[in-house]
């Protein structure tokens, strides 16, 4: 057991936005989960690997490289790298993990998003009108199918602003809605169909989080985010030993 949730920790070192996102994504993993990370998702990959190293309960980590509980020698730059299948005892390929999700047996999906609305729905398709795009984004990917079928889906944004957490999506790529969202300054969790503030980065205020959110945010019951445990810090340090991921992510709080 680590320290109780409500205890204010001793101020140790600052909690970087990068570490904040990865650590809080990892905390969505529950014992017994089958958890998945996909393409173009370094943060989610790191979160799953962190959870494997930092938490002492069993869960299954599967990924888009076909790995099932792999033992990569290092965290690869590409989150679909074959390294993520190293030492795997099976190859669980794309059709297989999508089918697993489609039939309701995926417990936790990590999926990217460009815009997120209050219901947790996502846009990864386009900024502007779909037919007259200002920015063509990567596209449907996993969201449209996995969001409505996974038991819990979680996402992250490296920017917490009214451009990313929006009142109205330019396009609804994925319905169904995220269960959890992590930004550099807050953790949102869905309750009764809406994302609410679950906890905030100790360095910011609740008001700041509310101001930087494009939809109305219920903050009742929220608390400062529990700081990283030693195990979490150590796991992340082992996955990003020279800080490359952190530097490349270029996240401002």
């Amino acid at each position, binding site marked *: 057991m680590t320290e109780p949730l409500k205890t204010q920790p001793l101020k140790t070192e600052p909690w970087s936005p990068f570490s904040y996102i990865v650590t809080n994504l990892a905390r969505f993993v529950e014992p017994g989960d089958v958890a998945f990370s996909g393409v173009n998702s370094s943060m989610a990959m790191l979160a799953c690997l962190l959870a494997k190293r930092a938490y002492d309960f069993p869960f299954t980590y599967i990924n888009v*490289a076909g790995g099932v509980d792999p033992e990569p020698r290092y965290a690869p730059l590409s*989150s679909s790298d074959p390294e993520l299948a190293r030492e795997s005892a099976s190859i669980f390929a794309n059709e297989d993990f999508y089918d697993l999700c489609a039939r309701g047996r995926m417990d936790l999906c990590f999926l990217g998003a460009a815009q997120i609305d209050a219901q947790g729905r996502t846009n990864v398709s386009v900024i502007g009108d779909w037919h007259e795009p200002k920015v063509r984004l990567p596209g449907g990917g*996993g969201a449209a199918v996995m969001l409505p079928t996974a038991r819990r889906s979680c996402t992250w944004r490296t920017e917490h602003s009214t451009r990313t957490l929006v009142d109205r999506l330019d396009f609804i790529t994925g319905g*169904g809605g995220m269960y959890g969202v992590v930004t550099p300054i807050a953790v949102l969790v869905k309750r009764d169909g809406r994302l609410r503030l679950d906890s905030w980065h100790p360095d910011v205020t609740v008001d700041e989080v509310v101001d930087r959110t494009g939809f109305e945010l219920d903050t009742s019951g929220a608390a400062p985010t529990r700081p990283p445990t030693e195990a979490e810090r150590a796991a992340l340090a082992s996955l990003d030993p020279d800080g490359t991921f952190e530097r490349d992510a270029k996240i401002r709080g």
Partner: protein
Amino acid sequence: MADGTDTASKIVSLRELAALVPDGASVALGGSFLHRGPFAFVRELIRQRRIGLEIVKQSPGYDLDVLCRAGAVAKAYTGIVAMEGNFGLAPWYRRAVERKEIELEENACYSLTSRLRAAAYGVPFQPVAGLHGSDIPALNGWKEIPDPYGSGRSVWVVPALSPDFAVLHAPEVSEHGDVRILGTPHWDRIMSRAAKRVLVVAERIAPMESFREHPEKTLVPHFMVEAVAVQPQGAWPGSCHPDYAIDYPAVEHYMSEAESTLQAHLERAPELRGSSRD
């Protein structure tokens, strides 16, 4: 059918392989993002000045981008398109869509897979789980069908899509054209079953004996494969497990906006070294 039963003369040059694909053909490309894509094949299509192609791939990146950059694409059926790593969006694809130089059918990866499944299973349409609440089905004019067995559920169905070609990159083939993938096959299995004709680029020919020892590892049996080219480093600048990893400096060079970059990039390609292209 494209006759793959005659195993005698299946090995051709990369140039001959690419020449099988005419202008305007629909082509499913194997691999995912920067991993195990038939990239030497794609470059050869560009060298042969192919135009009007329809590209089918759940998770393209470099391949679709370079084809857009060369003006070879008329339409793309995609799930998610990006360079991955730290390279972000696929810039020439992005611009081609924004400028309406290419037509896009946006899919979920799984809806595109389901379109291929319908073709592979010989049925006109395939039900797809999820999709509820997404704008994508309406965008594509897909139909929702109520469960005729009275569950009260309704489900989106997508129409069959049978690409003219599936082109896969594999580490190993047999001399007869059996295809072995090591690690994840990504979407290659369903592509090989849905397409009308299957072409393969391989790093090498592995001994028949090894295929007979591990037949379970063969993804595509020889009779489904029309022709094979052997091209070491053929997935460059991407990876081909277990042989080599992504060449990140080469991808970075490719990403340069300079006018001359495409030509310089094409000239650096491994298929131009040695004689295997011809």
